[in-house]
């Protein structure tokens, strides 16, 4: 299979969907003149003209207008520049977009996608390094998606654009330039379905986005110690494919959740809560969580490194649920 970058995979998805459906349009800050910070919009203006547009620095307009557009017959894709700025349009997301369909009794579909580049990269510090899915987990009405590779990025972005509900699409900034195999031609990756990234028998590691790679590395290292790790790549964070997680845990009897964001109040809390509630009698050890320490992301390299979850955190957690010392 050919290999292309994550960034190009999302570009293919955009192009295919924009060709297929003239009501798909895309806008965001600084996407037209330079193709986006991560090159993820390159070439779209040439082909699609004013269906790709730059906007002022006005996040409430970007997200609020996506709702208005979605309600009136188009399928907007709005780019958030950095996921950190979801905060600026939080009311539009949680009080308008997430509630509109419900509070109006299902009168309209809301086919919109918010693309949100997230995660730690290059000492971008407290306000440009966040994983913010934890801000949105307690909000009914949103679909949260986080691809982990070029192939899933393409298939999930296409599915997200076709979905008749609001999707927040988290793209880890470190993934953009990474290459990976991507099937030729059209395909969709279903929303709401996790994938077993690596089968194993001793421990279930539930993870997503960039952390899938870190977990694969850890799994390899652990294999050398005779430990067989099963990796569940969530792909859709909400609604979550709990069944796949539980099936795996019922087999391995042990579970570690790994994400880049802050552990306290993060996605891992919900996963741990579900796993212990629904597979309690299958568990041979508590569900452990690995993620960032409970502070903002600091600037200086040694601090940033210390706060972020690393390989040995993952390995240590796996060993702990196996009651083995690191």
């Amino acid at each position, binding site marked *: 299979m050919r290999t292309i970058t994550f960034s190009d995979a999302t570009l293919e998805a955009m192009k295919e969907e924009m060709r297929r459906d003239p*009501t798909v349009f895309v806008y965001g800050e600084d996407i037209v003149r330079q193709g986006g910070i991560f090159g993820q919009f390159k070439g779209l203006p040439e082909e699609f003209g004013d269906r790709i547009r730059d*906007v002022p620095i006005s996040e409430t307009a970007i997200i*609020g207008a996506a709702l*208005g*557009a979605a*309600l*009136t*017959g188009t399928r907007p894709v709005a780019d958030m520049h950095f996921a950190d700025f979801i905060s600026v349009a939080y009311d539009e997301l949680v009080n308008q977009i997430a509630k509109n369909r419900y*509070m109006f009794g299902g009168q309209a579909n809301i086919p919109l996608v918010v693309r949100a580049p997230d995660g730690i990269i290059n000492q971008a510090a407290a306000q440009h390094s966040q994983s913010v899915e934890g801000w949105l987990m307690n909000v009914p009405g949103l679909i949260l998606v986080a691809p982990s590779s070029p192939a899933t990025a393409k298939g999930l972005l296409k599915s997200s654009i076709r979905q008749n509900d609001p999707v927040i699409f988290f793209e880890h900034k470190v993934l953009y330039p990474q290459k990976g195999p991507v099937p030729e031609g059209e395909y969709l990756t279903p929303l709401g379905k996790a994938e077993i990234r690596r089968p194993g028998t001793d421990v279930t590691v539930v993870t997503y986005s960039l952390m899938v790679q870190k977990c694969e590395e850890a799994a390899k290292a652990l294999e050398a110690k005779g430990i067989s790790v099963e990796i569940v790549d969530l792909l859709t964070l909400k609604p979550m494919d709990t069944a796949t997680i539980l099936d795996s845990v019922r087999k391995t009897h042990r579970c570690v959740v790994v994400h880049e964001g802050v552990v306290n109040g993060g996605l891992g809390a919900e996963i741990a809560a579900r796993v212990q509630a629904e597979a309690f009698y299958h568990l041979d050890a508590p569900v452990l969580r690995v993620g960032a320490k409970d502070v903002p992301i600091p600037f200086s390299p040694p601090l940033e490194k210390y706060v972020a979850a690393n390989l040995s955190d993952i390995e240590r957690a796996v060993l702990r649920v196996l009651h083995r010392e690191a």
Partner: protein
Amino acid sequence: MPSRIKEFPNRFAELPASDKVGLLRTMVRIRAFETRAEMLFMNKKIPGFVHLYIGEEAIATGVMANLRKDDWITSTHRGHGHVLAKGADTKRMMAELFGKKTGFCKGKGGSMHIADFSVGMLGANGVVGGGYNIAVGAGMSAQIKKTDQVAVCFFGDGASNRGTFHEALNLASIWKLPVLFVNENNRYASTTPTGYHLSSARVADRAKGYGIEGYTVDGNNVVEVYDAATTLIENARKGKGPAILECLTYRIKGHYVGDPEKYRTREEVQAQQRENDPIERYFAFLAGKKAADEATLSALRAEAEREIDEAVAFAESSPLPDPEDALDDLFSFSPSEFPEAVR
């Protein structure tokens, strides 16, 4: 009453006589609906919050007379007048206020979250200033799909201090979106007078900051509102971009039904009621032109009362939603298709 800053062409004159009476009919219907809603709320037939549009009827009426069914509006917490003037069915509307299954929102919304997408009414809003960018997005749709639809965003004087106002106006201006921003300046944001909360003399003064036109009209003169809206909506439809139309009015009732109203005097309210009732004023105007008489007005009132009676009867006799209906309508797919989606 301050008068309008600009003379708009007298397009009202072009209306057939029946449409002129139609404007009166709409105002009378809104008044009847609101008067009844107040009573029903006080009698505990309507739960939640109710914000009444009494005294402001000329604005929804004069603006909406220029819209097609496929045009869109966004509304506010004080939305009943907008819903009615946009042509929604009174029965389903009343049923929604009652929280009944037959309501527009199946009882999930209530007064503060009432919408009828089938007539382009994109929703009241419990978040002040939440509608601006929804209207902007509707304008985007028209532009992307190259239709000549327009969107009208209604907003209060208090709402004009939300940051969303700024972002919406700037974006609508640079993209020349077909959106008219209609300000209902009723002199109060809840307990707070405009003289306190608004830094500009007029809401329309803010237009310059967005390179667009802003006008102030007497919002209790339906003719003036109509004329201004005709021109500005035609402009928007032709691609000339957005404008602000500020309509000066007065909220006759409390902010919500039950408001102790300690922030203003009874005299102030009574003077407005006496001298500035939009229905009385328009009726006097029509009567002066022999375009309507007392008989017309009583007939309209009786007709409106009948309509409301029927609406109330419909609402009263409609079933409450089934409790489990609470799990429907969150997503486009049903929870049974994908149980994880609504845990």
